[in-house]
Structure formats: structure tokens, C-alpha cells
């Protein structure tokens, strides 16, 4: 294949997958059902793994295959399974109650996306991998944080944290040819993995103590 075209295709594929990650993120923002949210997260992680695979394939960076594989195993299979099991075991009510209503949060996320793109704008020349990726990564982080404070239940906040991490990983993968070392990526990955497991246990405890997952109840801990 002509190398110029292959780079083009790679850039296009990455941009597409990155944007699909963003779309999934927005769907997460408007999703009411807890279990579906978890599945959406899995889908988003799958797109991330896909991006890593594309990067690895077109740039011949073998270590990125490891990232892709780990992402797939960890975030597409293991974590969703863990969260899913926990939701089912605790028999949490299915409906998520956001603080801000859906159209408003949707439009807020639209605004955050604009912000993400504006922030990423000066770095256009730095990226060779489709100019959307960094912007999407920043947006994922921003909307992830927005998601975290827009949700009441602890488990949804865990999900939001995971999407933030997806954003960080995306940036790492997208800029990978500039030498983000594998160790750092692995570090982030395991860091979050452990954090989520700790949080999952914590959520379980909160639920045991308060008979609810509403983090608003934590204010009662104040003496």
C-alpha cells in the first residue's frame, strides 16, 4: 500500500474512533440506566483499544499492542464485569438521578467539547495522528469530571472516573510516537485498576452503612 494513503487511512480511522469515544461519552451523559452505562463504558474502552491497535499496526510500535491488549482485557472485560456484578449483587435501583437535567447537561458537554477543541488547537502541528485525538482526550477528561459531580450514586462516579482515565490513556496513546514510555502507561493503567477496585469495595461499605449509595449521605459523617 502507498505509505501516504496508509497514513491517511490511519489518521482517519483514529479520528473516527476517537470521535466515537466522544459520542459514547455523550451517551453516558444522557444514559439513565446503570447497567447500560456500564456497557457503554465497555464500548468506549473498546474504541480506545482499537485506537491503540491502529497506532501499533500503522506505526509498527509493538509495545502499543500491549496497551491495546491490556485495555481490552482490563477495561472491556474485567472492570465492566466487576461493576456489573456489584450492581446486581447490591440490587441498586436502576435509574440514575443526575443533578442537572439531561438537555442542559448535554448542552454543557457540548460547550465543554468546544472548550476541549479550543484548548487543543495550538497543538495541531504536534500531532500526526488525526487532529481530533488530543481534543477528544481533553474533552473526555473534562466531561468525565462533569459527570462525576453530576451524579449522585457512588458507582456512577466510579464510572465517570474511568472515563476520565480513558481520556488520559487516549492522550497517551495518541502521542505515543513521541515517546510516552510504556512504563508510564502501565502505571496509569494499574493505578486506576487498583483505585477502582478500592472504590468498589468502598461503595459496598457505604451501601452497608447507609443503606444507600447517595454520596450526599456522606455529609452525615460530619461530627
Amino acid at each position, binding site marked *: 500500500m502507498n505509505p501516504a494513503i496508509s497514513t491517511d487511512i490511519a489518521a482517519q480511522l483514529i479520528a473516527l474512533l476517537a*470521535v466515537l469515544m*466522544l459520542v459514547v461519552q*455523550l451517551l453516558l451523559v444522557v444514559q439513565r440506566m446503570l447497567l447500560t452505562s456500564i456497557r457503554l463504558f465497555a464500548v468506549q474502552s473498546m474504541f480506545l483499544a482499537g485506537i491503540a491497535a491502529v497506532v501499533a499496526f500503522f506505526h509498527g510500535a509493538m509495545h502499543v499492542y500491549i496497551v491495546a491488549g491490556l485495555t481490552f482485557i482490563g477495561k472491556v472485560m474485567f472492570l465492566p464485569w466487576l461493576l456489573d456484578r456489584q450492581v446486581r449483587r447490591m440490587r441498586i435501583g436502576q435509574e440514575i438521578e443526575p443533578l442537572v437535567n439531561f438537555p442542559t447537561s*448535554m448542552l454543557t458537554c*457540548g460547550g465543554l*467539547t468546544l472548550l476541549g*477543541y479550543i484548548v487543543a488547537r495550538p497543538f495541531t502541528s504536534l500531532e500526526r495522528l488525526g487532529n481530533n485525538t488530543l*481534543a477528544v482526550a481533553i474533552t473526555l477528561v473534562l466531561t468525565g469530571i462533569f459527570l462525576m459531580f453530576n451524579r449522585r450514586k457512588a458507582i456512577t462516579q466510579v464510572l465517570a472516573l474511568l472515563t476520565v482515565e480513558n481520556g488520559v490513556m487516549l492522550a497517551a496513546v495518541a502521542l505515543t510516537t513521541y515517546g510516552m514510555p510504556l512504563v508510564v502507561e502501565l502505571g496509569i493503567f494499574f493505578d486506576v485498576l487498583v483505585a477502582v477496585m478500592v472504590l468498589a469495595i468502598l461503595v459496598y461499605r457505604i451501601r452497608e452503612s447507609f443503606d444507600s449509595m447517595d454520596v450526599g449521605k456522606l455529609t452525615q459523617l460530619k461530627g
Partner: protein
Amino acid sequence: MSSTAFDFVLQTALLLGLAPLVSGCIKNWKAKLQNRRGPPVWQVYRDIGKFLRKDMVVSEHASWVFSYAPYVVFISALLAGLMVPMVSTQAPLSLFGGVLALVGLLALGRFFLALGGLDPASAFGGMGSSREMTIAAIAEPALMLAIFTVALAAGSTDLSHIVQATLGPAWSLLNPRHVLAFAALFIVLLAETGRIPVDNPATHLELTMIHEAMLLEYSGRYLALMEWGASIKQLVLMTLLVNVFFPIGLAADASPAALGLGLLSYLARLSLVAGVVVLVETANAKLRLFRVPDLLSAAFVLASLALFSTFLFQ
């Protein structure tokens, strides 16, 4: 000039002939997917033929607006269809109006449809009109923004130009702008044609109905025109989707071979979109009316993402 007239007649015939088939296919496939046998794909033609032969009962409360509305609905849908390239890249009426006129014509049809719903003094009709206009109003910004995205890329609001500008290698159609705008427009399509997450086309006499509520007092010839008009509108929007976003295999010239190939590719892509509609309809339940804005605001944000992702870096 004569070739334009010929195109005009040909495309009118195609619109008239194909629209009920698409509706029929969707009904049939949906039934198949739900393990029912379902009506045959030709059923919509039979219905229309039957309606045409029937006597009409017109409400005694209705005024002249009621009788003119079906014609406006029918003609405006047809006119809108004549602006969209279907089989070749050239639409017969592309000089007379582009995508903005298309949106305007669909709005004109809707305006009279809603008036026709209000006219017979039935509460159902008023309900349908009110909801139809509301949903159309909140779908409109998403529709326009998605359209703007492609129009800006092509530098024209003329659909033939837009289609020609989009033509290119197949992989280049999978760019983010295209995919996002497509997704936005697809949601708008569901809302505008009264498909399941927004309205239930199969329902009659329920408090949830929208489109059917407006048609409740229509019968005979008028009903035939209304139903036919609605299916043409659906076909037009689907054609807009498949040809603006994935104009693969459209005939660039008027040779029979190219046209035949164009027709085949068009039908294939059309049935693909119809299939997706069927899947969406089968997999989802109808949304509550006040949840519809959630969906449409999502469409709006998708369309704005399409805009941001393309143009902020140029």
C-alpha cells in the same frame, strides 16, 4: 431542457412508486424481526388504492383548510423529493432550491398537516398538532446544523453540489464529520418521520399518538394523499441521508448503464438505512413525550460536534 423535464417526470414516478414500498418493507421486516408474519411489502399500495376508491366522510366542523391540507402535504413532499439527487448526482429541481428549500417545503407540509389536525374540532387532532409542531421545532436546529456542516464543506446549499463534493474514495467517507452529522440526521429522521423512540407509527387511538392523531378525521381520497405524502417524506429524508453522506455509485452521467448501477446502489443503501430503522424500532420502546427533547438535544450536540471536529482545525 427536455432532459430536465424527462428527469422531472422520472423522479416523480420513482418517488411515487418507491415510497409506499419502503414503508411496506419497514413494516414487513419489523414484523419478521418480532416473529410475526406481518403484512406483505405491497400492503401500503393496496391500502392507498383502497382509500382512493372509498367515499369520504368530512367533519361538519371542518372548514376549507381541511380539504386543501392533503394536497399541500402531498405536493410539498413531492417537491422536496425533486430537489434530492436520487439515482444520479443531478436532481431535477436543484436550480429551484437546495437543501434550505427542502427543509422549508417539509415545514410547509407539516404546517398544513397540523392545521388539518386542528380543523375538525377533535381533541385528538389538537393534541397531535401540538406535539408534532413541538417535536419538529426542537428537531429543526439539529437538522439545520447537520445540514450546515455538509453545506459548509461543499460550499453550497445545492444538494447536487453537495453530493458531488462528497464523492470520493469510500474510506474518506468515514471521517468524523460525516459520521457525527449522519448520526444527528438519523435521529432527526426518526423524529421527523414519527418512528419509534419518538412516535409509534402502528398506534391508533392511544393518547401517545402524534402523526396518526392528526389524520384521525381524514378518510378516503384525502387519507390516501396524507399517507402517501408521509411515506414520500420519509423516503426523501432517507434519500437525503444515504446520498449526502454515502453517495457511493451514484450515476455521474445519464447513460443507461450508469443509471442502472446508480439505481442498484441507491436501493441497496436505502434498504440498509431502512434496516437500521427497523432495528432501532424493534430494540427500543417509545419515549415519553418529555424525554424526546433529551434525544433531540443529543442530536443537536452531535451535529455541533461534527461542526467543531471539522472546522476548528482548518
